[in-house]
């Protein structure tokens, strides 16, 4: 191989050192912070042991950003902040400044440029989302579109702190649930077993691996039209879609059969109660682009029942834990069905094995 065609070897540098890029006050007071408070929704104020103070303005973004949006955020940081931006895990941009006087012009500039300021404290922060039709190979729905539609509706709850406690909403476009747990989670729920293209399975799929992937052992090898393929015992199949990623000819999605479900009460934090998983509330919602109005209606119904009835600092799941599920379904006007009763491993632990009931 000649010198010219020798490929470049990667510099295996791993996780970048953040200190060269960190706001100087954050770098100077690293590990030395004393307390904080919030001036207004979207503005944090931190005080260090040595007396240094830093103000942070938090603004929502669309996460899937074009170059122009990122450069605009950079322009704002250069003009109105001090040239540094950090991001939260929920794709909010944070701008740090070293004097309180810089806060108001920065807030105004962000709002003028279309970036909502908020997402702190007892607000509805940006929805954590996945890739969807824009870029995923197995999505049942879009992610960015669902989030945009919901955040348009919840924008007012992002820019104020009027919820009982913080509300973390997530979306996922398949049942793998890359969006994770949330106070409210909007996830795809498949309703039909995979449709198999038997002409392709033999060439495209590693059949034993696909069989091993099924959580209910519903897939078995089969010869179909003289070709090696796979078949699904549709009575056993729970329509989870686990076979679809390793075997794309087992199409799990359909324009009508792919539905959306809403789950509530997931919590990451250890504050007060231990972390919890979200629980099913509504399934069978249509996958209805471009704005998924049926989803928005269910989400806002749940959200405003929580806002009206929960006590200060109670998270969604903690509120329901206190008032009980019968009252939750009553307050939200949502139906309770046999599908709400778990039948997966460990399901018995989800049953009420006491005389504690609510009327």
């Amino acid at each position, binding site marked *: 191989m000649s010198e010219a065609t020798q490929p470049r070897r990667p510099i295996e540098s791993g996780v970048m050192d953040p200190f060269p890029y960190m706001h100087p006050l954050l770098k100077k007071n690293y590990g030395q912070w004393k307390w904080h408070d919030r001036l207004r929704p979207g503005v944090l104020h931190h005080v260090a042991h040595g007396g240094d103070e830093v103000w942070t303005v938090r603004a929502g973004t*669309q996460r899937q950003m074009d*170059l122009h949006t990122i450069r605009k955020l950079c322009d704002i940081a250069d003009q109105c902040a001090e040239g540094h931006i950090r991001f939260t895990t929920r794709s909010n941009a944070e701008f740090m400044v070293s004097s309180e006087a810089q806060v108001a012009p920065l807030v105004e500039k962000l709002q003028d440029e279309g970036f909502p300021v908020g997402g702190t404290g007892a607000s509805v922060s940006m929805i954590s989302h996945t890739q969807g039709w824009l870029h995923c190979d197995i999505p049942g729905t879009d992610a960015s579109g669902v989030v945009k539609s919901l955040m348009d509706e919840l924008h007012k709850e992002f820019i104020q702190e009027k919820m009982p406690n913080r509300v973390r909403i997530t979306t996922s476009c398949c049942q793998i649930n890359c969006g994770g747990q949330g106070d409210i989670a909007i996830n795809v729920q498949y309703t039909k077993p995979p449709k198999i293209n038997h002409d392709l399975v033999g060439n495209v799929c590693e059949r034993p691996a696909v069989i091993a992937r099924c959580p209910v052992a519903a897939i078995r090898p089969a010869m179909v039209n003289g070709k090696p393929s796979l078949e699904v015992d549709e009575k056993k199949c729970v329509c989870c879609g686990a076979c679809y990623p390793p075997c794309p000819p087992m199409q799990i999605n359909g324009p009508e059969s792919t539905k959306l479900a809403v789950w509530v009460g997931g919590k990451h934090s250890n504050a007060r109660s231990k972390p919890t998983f979200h629980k099913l509330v509504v399934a069978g919602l249509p996958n209805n682009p471009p704005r998924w109005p049926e989803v928005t209606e269910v989400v806002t119904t749940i959200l405003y029942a929580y806002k009206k009835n929960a006590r200060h600092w109670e998270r969604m799941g903690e509120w329901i834990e206190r008032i009980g599920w019968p009252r939750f379904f009553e307050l939200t006007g949502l139906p309770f069905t046999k599908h709400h009763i778990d039948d997966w491993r460990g399901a018995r632990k989800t049953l009420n094995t006491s005389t504690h009931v609510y009327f």
Partner: protein
Amino acid sequence: MWKEPRRISSVARGNDMSKKPHDTPLLDQLKEGPWPSFVEGLKRLSSDEDKPYAGMMKDLLGQLEHSYENRMGYWKGGTVSVYGYGGGVIPRFSEVPDKFPESSEFHTLRIIPPAGLHYSTDLLRKMCDIWERHGSGLIALHGQSGDIMLQGCTSENVQKAFDELNEIGFDLGGAGPALRTSMNCVGHARCEQSCYDEVRTHRTIINGFLDEMHRPALPYKFKFKFSGCPNDCVNAIHRADFAVIGTWRDDIQVDQQEVQNYVAKVGRKYMIDVVITHCPTRALSLNDDDTLEIDNKSCVRCMHCINVMTKALSPGKDRGAMVLIGGKRSLKVGDFLGSVIVPFMKLETDEDFEKLKDFCETVIDFFAENALEHERIGETIDRIGLANFLEGIGVEVDPNMVNHPRTSSYARMDDWDQEVEKWRARKAEAASASEAAE
């Protein structure tokens, strides 16, 4: 429906700079509303006629509109990587390349951001300039595992884009059955509740095992996450195979004057309803003079009272971290939260960090050798039992690892006396060690 892969030659892609945009009536409805619109961003890129990506983004919008019309996805995977690495690029080939040829190859580069997601505008602008030359102009900040996701690159340009990014300090993240890109909370950089140096820990661990990230050879994915306190802002217990979460061993620090100020501000009823009675282990009591009494031996370090009274209360001084292992979502046996494996360790000296790194290596090795294909470590633990896992990684049992002891009598316990002896020996050793320290 899935179709055979079809490659579009670069000649067929054409160079018609004034390619007509597809009509996107459904997506156009997402331009309205108060929240920033990703569709507007995509449209801006598609109309950058002087940029190499304009045609690609026109077809990308066309394919996305096609998904919105038919309510189906149209991407499939494949194999694309950069020289020297086996993972980190997410290949996407269109299933409808005849309709949307210019976005028929639309791969993602997963790029590791600076730990804690701190950027200078200069660094962001350099990244944008590279992506303007070689990619689509579309960037997600950030993916669920914490990567910068540079979305939309032809097979031909993947290496060029990576080389330039790599030259300014970025490296490729994880994908497939490998160590994945990690995340830490803002922590020490801007949070008084942080109990250990998250940046140092994150970089020590991940950069110590880059081979497992760049050359995927594990049974399945393996994720670390680093949260500075039990508020767990990066969702480590749910989402990480290996969660490092800050905590402390001594008493909560109290500024009683600030407690009194707080009570004077919010009122006694609010203080009792919102702080005292929300304590999960009833460790708080409000004194008659509006100071706070804390039964620190009953405190489980949940953070609630500290979150509410940020000026009056803070974590203790004897800070460190705990490790919980086994968090994951549904596939395939169900959802798991991570469970306690190391209840406390100091993370201050070089030796402390070396000890954590060695422990990580032991756990990763155990996973590599004992997990079944496509099995997360939580599932391995579930399959073999926690006691066997602990024996495998050389960790002694601790009552902090369980909610309560077993309720089932179906277990063989004829080595009970030997196990009791082990416990007593450990207790005696710990007692003499603490005596020696004093």
